[in-house]
């Protein structure tokens, strides 16, 4: 009973402020109980020691530094929300990754859906001379004349055609070409008098292959990649302009 009473008294003493007087019952108990009196003295001394720590003053330039800090914060507060820049940066990084992923997916999709490409060189090592194929004859722009010759070999040009050695049957061409075989289509016949002849090409979706023959068994094959700009202009003379072939 006395122990319980001491606990209550000590709790009450503990809740008092240092300069606050204890109630009459507590004071009476302190007079009677030496343990509680000692506890009270120790506790008071301890609280006095803690209270003696006092207040530590802020530095003299506290307000100056605070103003500078607030000014920096207000300067940094861009309309976009500069305070959230770390989050914005993460968001931009995420968006960049997503865009790269999307581009990669599109590239993969296109590569997987491309039409099957035939290796012309392997299938037809030697280009056959151009044959007349009525179904695929293109209507030339320029009117035809009696004097005709094979394309890209005008009369006025004495240049020798390189790679004159004909490719024998069964011989592999070193440079393999990936294109659709148009060797069985008729070659265009262009007038020699025209310095520049324009002829339409309807092979816009597939690579075009042009065979040139000088009539002496020397042949040259030119493979043109996919054309997407409608028509081409060829020049008979050697002074080809920039950007033309």
């Amino acid at each position, binding site marked *: 009973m006395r122990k319980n009473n001491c606990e209550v008294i000590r709790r009450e003493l*503990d809740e008092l402020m240092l300069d606050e007087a204890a109630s009459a019952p507590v004071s009476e108990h302190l007079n009677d109980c030496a343990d509680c009196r000692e506890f009270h003295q*120790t506790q008071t001394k*301890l609280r006095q*020691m*803690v209270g003696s720590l006092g*207040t530590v*003053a802020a530095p003299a330039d506290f307000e100056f530094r605070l103003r500078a800090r607030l000014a920096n914060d207000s300067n940094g507060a861009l309309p976009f929300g500069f305070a959230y820049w770390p989050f914005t940066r993460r968001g931009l990084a995420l968006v960049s990754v997503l865009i790269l992923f999307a581009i990669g997916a599109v590239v993969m999709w296109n590569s997987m859906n491309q039409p099957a490409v035939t290796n012309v060189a392997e299938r037809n090592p030697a280009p056959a001379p151009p044959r007349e194929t009525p179904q695929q004859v293109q209507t030339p722009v320029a009117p035809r004349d009696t004097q005709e010759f094979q394309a890209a070999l005008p009369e006025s040009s004495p240049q020798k055609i390189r790679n004159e050695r004909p490719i024998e049957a069964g011989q592999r061409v070193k440079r393999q070409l990936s294109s659709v075989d148009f060797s069985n289509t008729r070659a265009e016949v262009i007038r020699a008098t025209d310095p520049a002849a324009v002829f339409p090409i309807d092979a816009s979706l597939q690579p075009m292959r042009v065979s040139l023959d000088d009539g002496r068994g020397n042949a040259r094959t030119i493979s043109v990649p996919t054309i997407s700009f409608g028509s081409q202009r060829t020049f008979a003379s050697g002074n080809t302009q920039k950007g033309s072939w």
Partner: protein
Amino acid sequence: MDTLTTIDEMGFAPTLQQEMLEDTTSDHALLEATRTGDQDAFAELVSRYRNQITSYIYRMTNDYDGAVDLAQETFVRVYRAADRYQRSYAFSTYIYRIATNLAISELRKRKRRKLVSLTGFFQQSDGGEPQELNPPDTRPLQDLELVDTERRNAVQRAIGTLPEKYRAPLILRDVDGRSYDEIAKILETSEGTVKSRISRARGFLREKMRAYL
């Protein structure tokens, strides 16, 4: 017409003026003025609380430079959140709550960083409480000021070893002299919890400071 008297003659003027003056200089009024862009009002708030807040955070963290930094951060937050301030609490409660949260956050950061405790080197092998780095000097000291300084340092170190949940209420009560009700509001807990924690904190301190008592 002779019965008309001025307010001064009625004797109300001093009371009204005093009330108006008190109203314009209260913390709430200063924060209201800060909200409208009055920099002087905010400067007045800073001058009222800078020492208290700096001291409180210093007692919590035992690091003066860090305490100054956190005290400034406290005022920055008050300034930024001036629009959202509600008058349901006293301003002192509000600013002490911000300071307490910052101090506790700093203490937790330190704990995560696992700073090497100097007192840790003197931990007893049986896992008991660590011994003080500077044990009390039993030799007689000539200078009374040195004794006081040594005692204050010992108290500060002992407070620094308290768990944060005991440290904050003890400082608010025994160093700052705040009421239980206010401490409960600052720490957002009940008054009974505050009393219990303060009692436990004093018990810890009594054990640690036995040599000085």
